[in-house]
C-alpha cells in the first residue's frame, strides 16, 4: 500500500508541476474572449446615471436585437435603457439585475424568452462578473463551475498561443455594436440567415421561471414599479417546435395578477422571414415595427397624451 501511495503522490506532484507550467505559459497568450457580455458595464452605467423615473427593458437577446429604445422613449417620454444581452444569463440573474437597477416610479418592461432557464449558463454569468464584479450578487457562486471555466480559458489561451489575430470577436455578437441605450445594431441592414437557430430543449415539467417572474412582479408592486410584459417575438419555426411547452408557459404566466400584458401572445408569433438569425432575433425592420407597437400600447396603458 505504501508503494501505491508513494506512486500516487509522485504522480500528483508531476501533474501539478506540468499544469502550473502550462498555466504560466498561457498567461503570455494574447488571446481574448468574445466581449459581447461585457456590454453589461455600459448598460449599468446608463441605468444608474438616470436621475428621474426611467424605463428598463428586461430580458435576453430578443430585446437586444428586437427593441429600438429610442422609439419607446419618444412614446412614453421617459429615458429607456435596454438591459438585454442573452437569455443564457438565466432568469434569476436577469431579474435580480433589474431589481438592483429599478427604483420607485420606474417602469419595467419584461420580455423574458420562453426557453430561458432559471439558472442559465454559468459561463455567461462568470463573464458578466469578470466585467462588472457587482453582478456576483445576482447569482449563487459555484466553485466547481468557476474552476472548470478557468481551466477552459487556460486551454483556449494555449490553443491560440501563437495566433496573430488576438481576439475571438464576432461581427454580430460584439460589444461595439450596442448603441447608447443598449440596443444591438450589428444586424442592421444585413440579410437574414437562410436557417434560423432554434436550439434549446425546454424542461417540460418545470416552470420555476414563471414562479421567479411572479416573485419579481410582487417586488415591483411593493416598490411602486409599474410592470409590463411584452411577449417575446417568436418565429413560426420556434412555435412549431416548442408550441406545447410555450402554450403552457404563457397560460401560467397569464395567471400572474400584478403584470399588465402588452398585446396578445398570438400576434407575437411571426413568420420566419421576420427574423435575422434565431427564432427570437428580429430583423431591423421588424424591430422598428415591434417597438412602435410596444410604444403605442404603453402610451395608452399609461394614459399619456
Amino acid at each position, binding site marked *: 500500500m505504501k508503494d501505491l501511495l508513494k506512486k500516487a503522490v509522485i504522480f500528483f506532484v508531476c501533474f501539478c508541476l506540468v499544469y502550473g507550467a502550462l498555466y504560466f505559459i498561457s498567461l503570455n497568450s494574447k488571446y481574448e474572449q468574445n466581449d459581447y457580455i461585457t456590454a453589461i458595464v455600459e448598460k449599468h452605467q446608463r441605468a444608474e446615471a438616470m436621475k428621474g423615473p426611467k424605463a428598463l427593458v428586461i430580458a435576453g437577446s430578443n430585446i437586444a436585437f428586437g427593441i429600438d429604445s429610442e422609439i419607446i422613449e419618444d412614446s412614453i417620454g421617459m429615458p429607456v435603457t435596454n438591459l438585454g444581452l442573452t437569455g443564457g444569463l438565466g432568469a434569476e440573474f436577469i431579474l435580480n439585475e433589474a431589481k438592483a437597477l429599478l427604483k420607485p416610479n420606474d417602469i419595467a418592461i419584461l420580455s423574458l424568452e420562453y426557453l430561458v432557464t432559471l439558472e442559465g449558463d454559468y459561463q455567461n454569468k462568470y463573464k458578466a462578473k469578470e466585467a462588472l464584479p457587482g453582478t456576483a450578487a445576482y447569482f449563487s457562486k459555484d466553485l*466547481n463551475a468557476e474552476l472548470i471555466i478557468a481551466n477552459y480559458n487556460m486551454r483556449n489561451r494555449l490553443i491560440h498561443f501563437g495566433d496573430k489575430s488576438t481576439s475571438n470577436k464576432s461581427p454580430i455578437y460584439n460589444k461595439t455594436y450596442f448603441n447608447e441605450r443598449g440596443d444591438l445594431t450589428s444586424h442592421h441592414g444585413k440579410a437574414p440567415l437562410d436557417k434560423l437557430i432554434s436550439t434549446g430543449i425546454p424542461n417540460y415539467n418545470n416552470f420555476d421561471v414563471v414562479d421567479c417572474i411572479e416573485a419579481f412582479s410582487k417586488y415591483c408592486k411593493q416598490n411602486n414599479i409599474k410592470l409590463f410584459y411584452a411577449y417575446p417575438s417568436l418565429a413560426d419555426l420556434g412555435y412549431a417546435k416548442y408550441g406545447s411547452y410555450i402554450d403552457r408557459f404563457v397560460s401560467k404566466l397569464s395567471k400572474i395578477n400584478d403584470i399588465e400584458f402588452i398585446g396578445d401572445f398570438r400576434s407575437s408569433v411571426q413568420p420566419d422571414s421576420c427574423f435575422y438569425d434565431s427564432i427570437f432575433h428580429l430583423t431591423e425592420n421588424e424591430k422598428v415595427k415591434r417597438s412602435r407597437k410596444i410604444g403605442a400600447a404603453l402610451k395608452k396603458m399609461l394614459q399619456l397624451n
Partner: protein
Amino acid sequence: MFFNSVNYAVFIVTVFIIYWFFLKKNRNAQNILLLVASYIFYGFWNVKFLSLLAFSTALDYFSGLKIENATTKSAKKFWLFLSITINIGFLALFKYYNFFVESFASLLSTAGFQAHLPTLNVILPVGISFYTFHGISYIVDVYYGKIKAEKNPVDYSLFVSFFPLLVAGPIERATHLLPQIKKDRVINPVMMTEGMRLILWGMVKKVVIADRCADVVNQLFAQYKDLGSIYLILGCVLFAVQIYADFSGYSDIALGSARLLGFELLRNFNYPYFSKNIPEFWKRWHISLSSWFRDYLYIPLGGSRGSKLNNVRNVFIIFIVSGFWHGANWTFIVWGALHALFYLPQIFKKKHPAGQIKTIEHYPLIPGFRQVLQMMLTFAIVCLAWVYFRSLNVHEANEYIINIFKGFRDPAAIVNQVKEIVPGYAFLFAVLGAFFFVEWQGRDHIHPLYNIVTRVNQPVRFLIYMILVFTILFSVQPKQESFIYFQF
C-alpha cells in the same frame, strides 16, 4: 454531485482518507461513514428528497424483517405485496403520473371529449428508479429465502444508498453487496490500482467521448427536418456512441470508486457494440438491469419454457417494461418493443450447445469479414432503435427515420454530404476511431487500459496516465452535459 466534478474529486479523496486512515479497524464506523457520505452525496442534488430515500429504505428494511418473522404464507405475501406496491406507487407518482394523465386526456380528445385533468408540477427524484429496484430485489429475495433479512439498519441503509451506485446504478443485488458490507475490508493495492484506472477510463469516456458527441448530436437532432440522410445517420451513430460512453463511463467511475473503498460492484457493460446479435447485445449492455428483469420478471413469467408463443410474449413484456422503466414517454416503449422484435429471430433459431460459439474475447485482433459484418449489422439496428430513445416524441422519431431513407433518392446530395462530413468531422472521427480501437484490443478485461498499461514499464505508464488526465482536463467544456441516465 456529478462524478465529473471537482466537488466529487474532493469528496472521494476525503472519504477515502477518513475511511482507510482513521476508521481502518472499525467496520461499523466505516459503514456509518459511508452511509453519511452517501446521504451528503445525494443531498448535494436535492436535500428534500433525502426523506423519500430514507422512507423507501425504512419501508423495505421493516418489510424484510416482517416477511422473515411471519409465520404464515399469507402474512409473508401481505408484506411482500405492501412493500412492492408502495415502492412502485412512489415510482408511479413521481415518474409516470403525468404520462398516464396526459395519455388519457389525449385518448379522450381523440374520442371527442375535452378533459382538463390535473398534472403534477414535480421534479423526478434522481436515482428513484435505481434505489426502488434495489429495494424490490431485496424484498423478493427475502421472500423466496435467497437471503436472510438484514437486522442491522445501518448495513441495510448502506446497501440501498451506497453513493457510487445510488443515482445511476449498477443495480445491485442484496446477495452480492450485503455480504461485502458485513465483511471486514482490507486495503488491496491491486484492487485500488484497478479502481483508479477504471475512474480514469470512465472520465475519458464521459468527458472526451460522450460530451464531444453530445454537441453534434444535439445540433443534428434539433435540425433533423432540414438535414440529409448522411447527416441523420451520423446523428444516430453519434448518439449511440454518446449514450454508451456516457453511461458506461458513469458505471466505470462507480465501480472504480467502490473499489477504492474495498467493494466489488456488479459489472454493467461488457463492450456491447462488439455484439454479433441482439441477445448478445443485451448480455453486454446495462447488464445489471437486464439481469434484474430476467430474474424478477422474465423467469417468473415462465422465461423460455413452454411454447414459442409464450416465449415471444415474455420477451415483449420484459422489453416493453424495460423501455418504460427508462422514462414516461411512448418513445421508450417503442424503443423496448423494437428490441423485442429484433430479439425474435433468436427464439426461432436452432440453439448451439454452450461453448461452441466463440465470444468476442476469443476473436483475433483483426476479426474475420463475417464477424465484422455481424457486428456492424447489430450496431446498425441498435442505432435505429436509439432514434426513438433520443427523440422528444414518436412522431419526430418516425420522421427522422423516414427522412434517412427518403434522402437516398438523391445520390448527388448523398455524395455532397459525404464530402462535407468527412473533412468537417475528421478530428472527431479520428478520436472515435482511436477510442474503439483501444476498447477492441482490451475487450478481454473490465477496462481496456489494462492490456496497454500492464505491458509497459513504469515511466511509460505514468506518461500514458498523464496524457489521459490532460486530455480530460482540456476536453472539459464550461457547459457540462449531465449524465443521460440521471433522468431515469
